[in-house]
């Protein structure tokens, strides 16, 4: 199976020997850069390769499910009733997480694994200096009250990771649609970017640019996190997984000044960014492998190791894990993250198989908008036209494909 070089996976790797001892199943994994993960999995699945467990990013689930590469949970239950752990309790998973990450068109394929929420990280000291003793509650506050006071002397109020790629489409673009009541698609899957609410959000992003460092369009996650960690920027909205980087004295100068809060609210409420993965059994595995795969998945996301997993650096998707107050106190990011998960939007990014084409369109034009190479209206129109062309080709408009995202 494929793992990424991230804390969640390193945590599982640490706990692996325990699993192998108990079941005698040997787990072979490889660590691959995130950028290459999808292509490696796709190559493998489409040519009867050797992967038995699929690591499914939130946005790949539509594609993988439709291609028939992953096995639904119901089938596993039917085929191998005796390996299902009675304690597995699929309802223990936070509903939004299970729905967004592991479910497609009503069928559950696999439990969530390594999930994140967008959070507001801020530098307490910088805020205090400017006269604030708590983080902004809404985006309006952020831009009108907080930002002007925090942007001076080569320090900036905010950094938004916007590099062309998934970073642009997910972190930069989508983040400024949902909280304003806008969205990429409307109910009939036509472009909703022309809607005044979407436009408001996107224009907001443009006006936020003056409070962000120059060259922001090239910032990727590590650049934004680093800007905060080095004390150059006061606030960022980034994935919860970065908490460990920000409190590690080796990579951060603001360890004791770090504050964590849920993302600011927009006029339409708090709709934080949603990201992460799920684990599913690969269809191409033989029966014995499928059973072994399920045992692993069950164990990795199980109740028993939930707490250990978090201690080792991972993120569990289960409600039971978080009932422990000591755990909550030790990791201040958990509470904001749980709050965010209560209110998130599963369709934050459409998860159908056409997303790969759409994300490129959005990434290209989103960055052009931010560079002022096109106006917000022009850019949105372009994205709209192209998106509709893609969806038309795929058959969403004439009923060939169900409107599922």
């Amino acid at each position, binding site marked *: 199976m494929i793992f990424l070089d991230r804390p969640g996976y390193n945590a599982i790797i640490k706990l692996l020997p325990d699993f192998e001892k108990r079941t005698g199943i040997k787990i072979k994994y490889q660590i691959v*850069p995130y950028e290459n993960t999808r292509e490696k999995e796709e190559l493998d699945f489409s040519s009867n390769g050797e992967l038995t467990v699929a690591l499914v990013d939130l946005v790949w689930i539509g594609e993988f499910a439709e291609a028939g590469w992953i096995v639904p949970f119901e089938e596993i239950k039917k085929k191998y009733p005796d390996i299902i752990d009675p304690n597995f309790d699929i309802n223990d998973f936070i509903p939004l997480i299970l729905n967004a990450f592991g479910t497609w068109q009503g069928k559950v394929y696999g439990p969530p694994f390594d999930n994140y929420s967008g959070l507001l990280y801020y530098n307490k000291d910088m805020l205090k200096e400017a006269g604030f003793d708590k983080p902004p509650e809404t985006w309006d506050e952020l831009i009108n009250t907080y930002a002007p006071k925090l942007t001076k002397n080569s320090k900036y109020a905010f950094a938004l990771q916007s590099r062309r790629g998934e970073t642009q489409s997910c972190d930069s673009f989508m983040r400024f649609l949902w909280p304003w009541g806008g969205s990429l698609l409307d109910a009939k899957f036509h472009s909703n970017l022309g809607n005044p609410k979407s436009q408001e959000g996107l224009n907001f992003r443009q006006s936020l640019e003056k409070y962000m460092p120059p060259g922001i369009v090239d910032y990727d*996650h*590590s650049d934004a996190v680093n800007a905060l960690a080095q004390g150059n920027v006061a606030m960022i909205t980034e994935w919860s997984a970065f908490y460990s980087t920000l409190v590690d004295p080796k990579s951060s100068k603001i360890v004791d000044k770090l504050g964590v809060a849920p993302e600011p609210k927009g006029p339409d409420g708090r709709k934080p960014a949603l990201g992460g993965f799920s684990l599913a059994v690969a269809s191409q595995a033989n029966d014995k492998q499928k059973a072994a795969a399920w045992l692993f998945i069950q164990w990795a996301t199980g109740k028993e190791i939930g707490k250990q997993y978090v201690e080792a650096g991972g993120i569990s998707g289960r409600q039971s894990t978080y009932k422990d107050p000591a755990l909550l106190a030790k990791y201040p990011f958990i509470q904001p993250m749980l709050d965010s998960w209560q209110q998130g939007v599963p369709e934050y990014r459409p998860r159908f198989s056409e997303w790969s084409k759409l994300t490129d369109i959005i990434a290209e034009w989103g960055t052009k908008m931010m560079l002022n190479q096109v106006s917000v209206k022009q850019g949105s129109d372009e994205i709209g036209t192209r998106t509709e062309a893609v969806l038309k080709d795929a058959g969403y408009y004439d009923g060939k494909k169900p409107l599922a995202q």
Partner: protein
Amino acid sequence: MAAIRISKKRFGIAHFVGLLLILFFCVFPFYWMVSSSLKDPQLILSQKPTLTFQPTLENYQDAFQRNVGGSLGISLFVALTTTALSLLLGTPAAYALARFDFRGKKDIWFWFITNRMVSPIVLALPFFLLASNFHLIGNPIVLVFIYLTFNVPIVVWICSDQFRGIPKELDEAATLEGYNSFSIFWRVALPLGAPGIAVSAIFCFIFSWNELLYALILMRRETQTAPVVATSFMSGYQVPWGQIMATGTLVALPVIIFSLIVSRQMVRGLTMGAIK
């Protein structure tokens, strides 16, 4: 007389300065990589890049924890084997193209070159299918053979030019003494073509060593090559600069050592050319 001497002297200085500039140009980014690998990770990201610092080996320790050592071994095996094979296959072919005349010579020569022109992006899937049919996924031998497709053309190319530059009188002298074409190849062409052979060996080694796409797709964790390990750090959310620079340095070192060893051949060949 004096004018010539002065200008020669000025040229000598200019020559010296020019060489220094070349040295700086080549080495500085590398130096930066090495020094970053020795810096505390915090320091790398600080506002003012520092030229003096306390060196630390922790980045290397981290790197070795990730099985970088093993991958260096695999890369070494693959690169050496494919270089040796390329030379073995390529030098005779280069000699044939340089010395003999036959129908279709130009076309064969051009065909060799076109082997290197196709983008690996679209050959990745076919190679993957081919390799999995032969159950060779994860076996470094597969890389050795795939790399031949772009190494042999380089060898053929550079060496055929080199062989062509060897005066034919030497060939004739040898023939008169009764040597057959293979012996001529062995005793005359190869030694005199040493600079070209050395250069092409260096290139073969470098290109095989650094190749990333095929290695990423066709190898498994136990048999990953060094560049694959070096880039596996890029989780998409973090860029551990220190470790990457450390791995980058480790990956570049064997190539430099190899070139050092081989370039002595190159120098010998150059002086032999003068003596002849």
